[in-house]
């Protein structure tokens, strides 16, 4: 039971922050894809900077462990391209679609219904995927520090600097 309550409270806060960041809107999502409004990237990359410092710090302190999704180059890339294509049309990702409904953008209901059907279709085709795409370039649960053989604390400042440089460019170009 505490699992469900913890999930709900986390979601309430996450939903409020997504809404306050103004990332739940179709025009912000598609605006980023049209390279006209980078609001969603500002939100995501800010979260990632804080998150990668915090997560790696607590991992080093032995408080938490990572839960890295497996790298399967074929599946990550082909799935990623399919997701991106559908994302451009519906204008929401799974998390923001439900948030958009909360904010009054009730047309996101169509996107949610489509995604439920898409999940069911995937469940039916999973055996075929498992025998093919899900084996193409399967490298296991790897991280950049594993691959590059460096400490996360070398990569974190470099990535942070790169993301901040992007922010500077976004603001300079008023995106």
């Amino acid at each position, binding site marked *: 039971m505490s699992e469900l309550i913890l999930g709900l409270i986390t979601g309430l806060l996450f939903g409020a922050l997504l809404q306050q960041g103004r990332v739940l809107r179709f025009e912000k999502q598609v605006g980023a894809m049209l390279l006209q409004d980078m609001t969603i990237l500002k939100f995501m990359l800010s979260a990632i900077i804080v998150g990668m410092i915090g997560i790696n710090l607590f991992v080093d302190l032995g408080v938490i462990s990572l839960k890295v999704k497996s790298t399967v180059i074929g599946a990550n890339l082909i799935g990623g391209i399919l997701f991106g294509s559908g994302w451009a049309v519906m204008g929401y990702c799974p998390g923001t679609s439900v948030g958009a409904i909360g904010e009054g953008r009730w047309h996101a209901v169509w996107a949610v219904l*489509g995604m439920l059907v898409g999940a069911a279709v995937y469940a039916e085709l999973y055996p075929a995927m498992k025998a093919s795409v899900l084996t193409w370039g399967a490298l296991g649960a790897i991280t950049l520090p594993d691959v590059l053989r460096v400490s996360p604390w070398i990569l974190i400042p470099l990535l942070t600097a790169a993301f901040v440089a992007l922010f500077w460019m976004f603001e300079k170009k008023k995106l």
Partner: protein
Amino acid sequence: MRATWRPYIAGALAGVLAVLSVVLSTRMLGKPKYLGASTTFVRAAGIAERSVAPAHVEGNDYYQSKKVKVDWQMMLVVGILLGAFAASRIDGSFKAESVPPIWSDRFGTKIGVRAVGAFLGGIVAMFGARLAGGCPSGHGMSGLMQLSVSGYIAMAGFFGAGVLVAHLIYKKGGNQ
């Protein structure tokens, strides 16, 4: 909140929330919970299908591997809806909208056209998210926070295809 700083501040706080979520879930539940959303659509689809064809869901490997039940992440997704509702009512930004801007410039204001587009887009997107192993929350935010290789590959696919397809469909006509 000044408009310029809004996405940065809200995003940074979401980063704090993501870290707190992993720490608290590890302490309270004995397992780390990273933010994510797309697996919930699998479980919700499974719950709906189970009500009409229970044996079929029982026999489906994918549903069995994801466990068809209400879990932490499904409550997170419900929370996102309620949290967005509350926050938008409090600051007055809640707005009932039947067809979004940009879309209406290109395809008009017919609800049916938007419904079909969003529905078909949703099918393709969720199939892709499940194949990739996550969405912009799970692969994007949680993956990149952990410096995961899969997160970077998936995000390149998400944005690469998103930019291309958005330019193809919205750049023609309209007032872009």
